[in-house]
């Protein structure tokens, strides 16, 4: 690896595309501004527009970085350029994961601020300005989504020869919605052997550990021929931890560690709902596997670029 060549590649990417990038960034500022100015000013809206705008525009941007490897005429020049496939991908990754988000933030935050100023000072709305810190608990999801999306889009951009971005977008949507649609079914298949009535799956911890109040009743019948009425004895109410007998995996999300809701249907009046989550170490493994997809897609892109021919 040569630092000099990486620098030359950086320069080349900018020199050859600067006009497109400048126009694209201006257009993006305009579109973002449209959303910021025309919708009500609230940190939630600001965060939403910022995040969606970042995910969308960065995906478009990433899909173009390696696009020169797809068209025969440009691919010939790109493949023959004396730099390794690793150096070429490294530059694309830095552009996609570092330079673009920084430039995006530097350009769209002032737009957001201008819209905030307009809403508060001119229109008189009272709303705070979002300070660029993601809502609690969202930072990891946003980062995971961002890294994953960029890595996947970059891979797809080397996969498709024509209309790479459109095909990538279709594929991303298909994977996303397909996963959402199939997620429960897949998890049911995965865990069906563990989901037995009245048995809490091994390794799963009920969260929160909820208890039901249970009373036992017993009817004592008098001997035959007796005139006495049957007597019902009700035990004193006690707290019991009823194992779930019905599991629904509908509570899990595609970017969340496996978790599902379980309930005990015998509690008809007050169904006891359990939220079972994986133990911390298993959650860590899932998160790690998800994050591993990012370098995995980079690796696939590298292999694809190394194996790229003019066919």
């Amino acid at each position, binding site marked *: 690896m040569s630092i000099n060549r990486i620098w030359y590649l950086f*320069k080349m990417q900018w*020199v*050859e595309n600067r006009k497109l990038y400048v126009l694209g960034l201006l257009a993006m500022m305009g579109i973002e501004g449209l959303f910021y100015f025309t919708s009500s000013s609230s940190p939630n809206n600001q965060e939403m527009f910022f995040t969606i705008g970042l995910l969308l525009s960065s995906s478009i941007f990433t899909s173009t970085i390696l696009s020169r490897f797809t068209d025969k*005429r440009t691919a010939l020049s790109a493949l*023959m350029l*004396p730099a390794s496939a690793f150096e070429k991908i490294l530059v694309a990754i830095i552009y996609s994961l570092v330079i673009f988000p920084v430039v995006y933030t530097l350009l769209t935050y002032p737009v957001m601020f201008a819209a905030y100023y307009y809403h508060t000072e001119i229109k008189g709305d009272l709303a705070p300005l979002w300070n660029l810190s993601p809502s609690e608990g969202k930072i990891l999801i946003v980062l995971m989504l961002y890294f994953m999306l960029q890595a996947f889009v970059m891979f797809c951009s080397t996969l498709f020869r024509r209309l790479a971005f459109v095909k990538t977008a279709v594929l991303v949507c298909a994977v996303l919605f397909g996963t959402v649609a199939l997620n429960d079914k897949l998890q049911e298949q995965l865990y069906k052997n563990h989901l037995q009535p009245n048995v809490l799956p091994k390794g799963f911890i009920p969260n929160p550990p909820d208890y039901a109040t249970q009373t036992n009743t017993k009817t004592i019948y008098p001997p035959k021929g007796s005139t006495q009425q049957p007597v019902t004895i009700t035990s004193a109410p006690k707290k019991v931890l009823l194992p779930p007998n019905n599991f629904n995996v509908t509570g899990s999300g595609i970017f969340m560690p496996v978790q599902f809701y379980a309930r005990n249907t015998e509690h008809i009046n007050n169904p006891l709902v359990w939220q079972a989550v994986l133990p911390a170490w298993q959650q860590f493994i899932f998160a790690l596997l998800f994050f591993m997809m990012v370098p995995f897609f980079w690796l696939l892109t590298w292999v694809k670029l190394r194996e790229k021919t003019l066919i």
Partner: protein
Amino acid sequence: MIIFDNLTFGYKKAEPVLQDLNLELKQGHIYGLLGQNGAGKSSLLYNICGLLFANKGQCHVLGQVPSKRNVSFLQQVFLLPEEFYIPRVNLAGYLNTYAPFYPAFDRDMFYRFAKEFEIPDTGNLQSLSHGEQKKVMISFALATNAKVLLMDEPTNGLDIPSKKQFRKIIAGCIRPDQTMIISTHQVRDLDSLIDHVLILKDKNIIVHEPVDRITEKLVFKQAMTLNEAGEVIYSEGGLKGYAVVALNKKEEPSRLDMEMFFNAVLSNKQQIVQLFNN
């Protein structure tokens, strides 16, 4: 310098374009690669520079395997394709962007060639005509000082004075440690430049001969009648009699007419291949 060892290549495995190709090309020569449309000339060039991978057999260039596309390999092998990409930058911008990738790049040489070709140094390169863009690319290719220079139809799009300049520049700049392969249909443009002829036909190189040996075995001449021309292998009738390719039994000196030779090979493949195999 370039070795093909039993190489087979095809865009589809069942339909090879090159089959069991064995070839050795040495440094210090300008090879003219001739062949009909679709014969596989470009495929051969792309295999040399690692843009296509062999289905079977091997290719070694400068001791390296082209398909690995190592940086040191790419710095030494330059391909000027028939249709090339030129970015929207000016001449200086192009040099500043691309030249640093080639350690042996000679800027003075580039500007010298650019001057000889009379390339205008104004505006971005995309606004130049195709011929002018080609001159930029030829100048750049030569200035990289790459040890292997591959050119696919380099004179296509060049005007008549530029073709002359091209021949002059190439003849003046090739070094003993360089190999140049020029694939072309415009054989007359490069008659005087090429010192080895490669003819690709039927998925293989059927002629691989230095120009001297061709003119030693064959004579290229004009004759009023075919009878006076000796053992004619190929002839073309014209207003002034016949242009003839004949066996050079009397060791007559003549100048290779590449187009006539190529046509002779196409029409009398068996006889000519046999002649050069003896």
